[in-house]
């Protein structure tokens, strides 16, 4: 078998190597073709072996350059911030929340130089952005992913994405939204671009509100877009805790309205209102002017977000006097009815003379408060001694941290009683040469209203995690007894007189509720000196007076229109807040409502004889309600325990609410303005739980 093969081999070797074979034998030709074909096959397969030998090191040996390049180009480390937790009012109203807002991104490398200009102009027109700024961003052709606008209108998303497909796209970002707009804005604060709380609650509770950050490596394509199929990474970042505040949105709104009113009537440079629950220490409202809408992140004036209720310490002026009086009564130095010589309005202390705005001779201590006598209060301070007074004021919470833990809180100033000069003792007693914040005043006042026991002010009622589990729940905390119950009671009674006729706070009377208060008109310190014109006008008050529920502080800083007296500037604000808040809280009215000219109902229609037209009750549709004579704009109790419905025609919504308040009648209000019709008609009787329908226009 071997031999013929060897013969064949030598035969075609000879044929192949022959110098000039001439005509070729066809068998040799085929043999040579097969041989050469085999050589080519072997060559190609050797080539594959080379490829295999190349593939082994390429694919298995570590290569720093390839690995480094792969690591940077295929992946990006991504941090997903979970949405911040909500901030809620005590009634559950959402004060701050996180919403997904579309952000416009672009890949400038996909745009030609000619496209950039027109595209920038078109986008600027659609989104209301600056064309020059967009042109600059879109011209960065080396970039592949650039943020053009962080919050665009959801309506614009579709149109924008169609402009240059692939080069423009929309990404959704968690954005802070404040549904109440400027409501309590300075208290809530705001959040920066990096999801960090910058001011207010957002800052003080940033740790709780801020969600967890989920860090992961994201696979991306060459354009930098996410190609991970792992699902929504956002879901793995846990949302922040939600915070429920003690703030009562309805009362907060009342406080905001009161300040708005003050801004119109007195135009102060700044204004503050604080409402505190006397018995618990809960802060129900903190309002500030100026304020800002924190939703306008790009245009917001950060200085307008200042929470002056804790950040501004003013000389309180006369509103400090009640605390000195209370301390004096507590020490048994005086009683309300004890007589004090107010020296006819001018009294020398050391080298100085102190004056009263309204000179008085010998008056009772109660009248010292009512007329706000500097001289009378100074005498109490001397009788008490500086040490005693300063220690007492500190017990009231002055110069102490409020406990609210808000950013930029200041604690105020009080002189050291050691080595103090007599005039300084006198001025401190009427609120000069010391400073306090509105929250400190409110807390001190609340202690008076709470039978002399100071409660720790607090703002956060509850912190719940994203699953609803309570992480923190604050309860009322008793700090200490500052003055005796009798002293507190006596002081409240003295402060009631301030609102009585002849007192300085008549404008502060709430509608339907009693109140005890004190006015203050402090000269403002400007550049280290008392200003001749600038005043800090304030009113502090407790309401209702017999069993105080609320401590309210209203301050107008540097009023510029009309009177600068605290009673005039801040009194009406107190009245408005107190009235609305107590009604909201369901506190029974304890004084009759005085008719106010502005809010009085329109005079009854007159007949041709000049006499009021008789009110004709409409025909009775149903026999059930007992028909009674038309009464005043108040529910009148009938013998059977039911109430007669007044004629409400022409009255305001508020009048209606006032009229039925406390009767347990369900009121349905339709429309706004003045009452045009009511059901049942005037004179019908209603029982508690019945329904009264009123249409306003």
């Amino acid at each position, binding site marked *: 078998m071997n031999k013929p093969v060897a013969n064949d081999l030598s035969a075609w070797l000879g044929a192949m190597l022959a110098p000039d*074979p001439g005509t070729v034998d066809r068998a040799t030709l085929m043999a040579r073709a097969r041989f050469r074909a085999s050589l*080519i096959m072997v060559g190609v397969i050797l*080539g594959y072996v080379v490829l295999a030998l190349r593939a082994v090191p390429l694919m298995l040996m570590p290569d720093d350059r390839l690995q480094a390049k792969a690591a940077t180009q295929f992946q990006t480390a991504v941090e997903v911030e979970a949405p911040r937790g909500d901030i809620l009012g005590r009634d559950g109203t959402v004060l701050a929340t996180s919403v997904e807002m579309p952000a416009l991104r672009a890949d400038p490398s996909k745009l030609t130089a000619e496209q950039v200009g027109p595209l920038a102009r078109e986008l600027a027109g659609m989104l209301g952005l600056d064309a020059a700024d967009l042109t600059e961003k879109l011209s960065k052709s080396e970039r592949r992913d650039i943020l053009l606008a962080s919050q665009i209108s959801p309506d614009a998303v579709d149109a924008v994405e169609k402009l240059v497909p692939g080069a423009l796209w929309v990404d959704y970002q968690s954005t802070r939204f404040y549904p109440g707009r400027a409501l309590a804005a300075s208290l809530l604060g705001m959040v920066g671009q990096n999801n960090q709380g910058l001011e207010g609650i957002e800052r003080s509770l940033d740790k709780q509100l801020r969600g967890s950050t989920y860090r992961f490596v994201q696979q991306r394509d060459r354009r930098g877009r996410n190609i991970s199929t792992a699902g929504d990474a956002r879901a793995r970042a846990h949302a922040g805790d939600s915070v429920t505040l003690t703030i009562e949105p309805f009362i907060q709104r009342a406080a905001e309205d009161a300040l708005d009113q003050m801004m119109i009537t007195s135009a102060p440079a700044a204004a503050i209102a604080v409402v505190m629950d006397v018995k618990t220490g809960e802060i129900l409202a903190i309002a500030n002017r100026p304020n800002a809408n924190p939703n306008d992140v790009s245009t917001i004036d950060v200085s307008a977000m200042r929470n002056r209720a804790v950040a501004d310490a003013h000389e309180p002026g006369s509103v400090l006097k009640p605390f000195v009086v209370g301390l004096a009564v507590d020490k048994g130095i005086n009683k309300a009815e004890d007589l004090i010589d107010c020296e006819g309005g001018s009294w020398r202390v050391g080298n100085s003379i102190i004056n009263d705005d309204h000179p008085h001779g010998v008056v009772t201590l109660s009248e010292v408060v009512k007329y706000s006598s500097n001289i009378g209060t100074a005498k109490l301070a001397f009788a008490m001694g500086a040490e005693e007074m300063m220690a007492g004021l500190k017990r009231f919470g002055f110069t102490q941290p409020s406990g609210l833990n808000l950013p930029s809180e200041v604690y105020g100033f009080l002189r050291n009683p050691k080595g103090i000069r007599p005039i300084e003792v006198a001025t401190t007693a009427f609120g000069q040469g010391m400073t306090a914040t509105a929250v400190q005043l409110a807390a001190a006042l609340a202690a008076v209203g709470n039978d002399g026991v100071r409660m720790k002010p607090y703002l956060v009622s509850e912190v719940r995690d994203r699953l609803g589990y309570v992480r923190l729940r604050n309860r009322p905390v008793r700090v200490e007894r500052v003055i005796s119950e009798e002293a507190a009671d006596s002081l409240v009674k003295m402060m009631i007189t301030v609102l009585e006729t002849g007192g300085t706070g008549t404008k502060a009377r709430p509608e339907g509720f009693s109140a005890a208060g004190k006015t203050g008109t402090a000269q403002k310190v400007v550049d280290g000196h008392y200003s001749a014109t600038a005043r800090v006008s304030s009113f502090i008050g407790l309401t209702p007076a017999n069993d105080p529920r609320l401590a309210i502080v209203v301050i107008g800083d540097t009023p510029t229109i009309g009177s600068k007296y605290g009673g005039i500037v801040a009194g009406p604000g107190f009245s408005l807040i107190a009235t609305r808040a107590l009604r909201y809280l369901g506190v029974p009215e304890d004084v009759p409502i005085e008719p106010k000219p502005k809010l009085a109902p329109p005079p009854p229609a007159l007949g041709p004889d000049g006499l009021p037209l008789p009110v004709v009750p409409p025909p009775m549709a149903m026999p059930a309600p007992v028909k009674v004579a038309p009464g005043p704009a108040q529910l009148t109790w009938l013998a059977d325990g039911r109430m007669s419905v007044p004629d409400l025609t022409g009255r305001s919504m508020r009048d209606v609410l006032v009229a039925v308040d406390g009767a347990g009648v369900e009121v349905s209000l339709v429309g706004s303005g003045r009452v045009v019709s009511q059901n049942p008609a005037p004179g019908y009787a209603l029982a508690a739980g019945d329904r009264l329908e009123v249409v306003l226009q």
Partner: protein
Amino acid sequence: MKARRFDLPLMGLVVVLLILGLVMVQSASGPVAADRLDDPWYYVKRQLAAIIVGIIGGVGIAFTPYEWLRRYAWAAYAAVIIGLILVFVPGLGHRVNGASRWIGMGSVNLQPSELAKLVCVLCMAHFIDEKGGRLDDVKNVLLPALAIPVPLMLLIVMEPDFGTTVIIGGMAFLTLVVAGLRTRFIYALFGLGVTVGALVAVAEPYRLKRLRSFMDPWADAAGSGYQVIQSMIAFHSGGLTGRGLGESQAKHLFLPEPWTDFIGSVLGEELGLIGVLALLTLYGLLIWRGMHVARQAEDLFGALLATSLTAAIGLQAFFNLGVVMGIVPPKGLVLPFMSYGASAIVAQLFAVGLLLNVSANSAAGARAPTIYRPSATAEGVLAR
């Protein structure tokens, strides 16, 4: 007609490669097609259509009577020449990236140069066999044989399509070598080819730049070296077992059109070294079967045809994978049976049809031949 005995292993290998190719085309093109064309199956569908057309044509060719291949060789040659001219006719020709390679007919585009490879070998094999393989007769046989590829090459290089021109030249050269070209002519032609190739390469600055970036792709990793580096990254991240089918990262726009020339990189990344070695094995087996067909051919025509077609497929696979692995300068060659490209797939399946036709007429089908029988004669067929 006698019963035909096709080379079944060859057919099986082609089917396996086609299926693997479809899978890789889907993986490589899916995300981009979904993004750009809203249809992740776009390229797969078109590739499948081309495969069906190619199989129908290939089967037709395989069943064509052997002698007809020779009878109509010149007609096919003429048709391709016309096609190559039509490419330049405005309105008919279809330009892509500055090259006129296609005849456009709506969404279907024909690339005549792919068929030129086939007819060139077909005609040369036919001509040389007809002349009794007397290549030593320079004037009457060698020079005319050499002239056959020249019009094709000229028309294709004008498109321009340098890569295909080189392939046709190479296939013509191999045909002559297998036909018994004398050693000194082999050297001479090889030298001539290399010289012309080098001159053409240097004449175009971009080809020189390609060559330079091949020598050191990292010198301009973001520019001329980009593609090779991306391809090497893909292979490297594949490792031994690959990232898993569909898990390529490089296909996400990092590799340019990864479903065409760089499909091997995606395969390397997704199926790893094991996948690459399997692919090389498949090609190796295919070459072995192709050469088996050539060696078993009953005449010189069949032997030349089978050798050249097999070598063309094998060398394209080698050069394509060499490029994507960074050991061969960039060429722009497709990976046979794998890369997306309708005309190429159709031409490759036609070539398989030719190979199967030759295999069916192989000497192995009959008893081992002891004497040379002039082919395509009644006598030859009867001799079986």
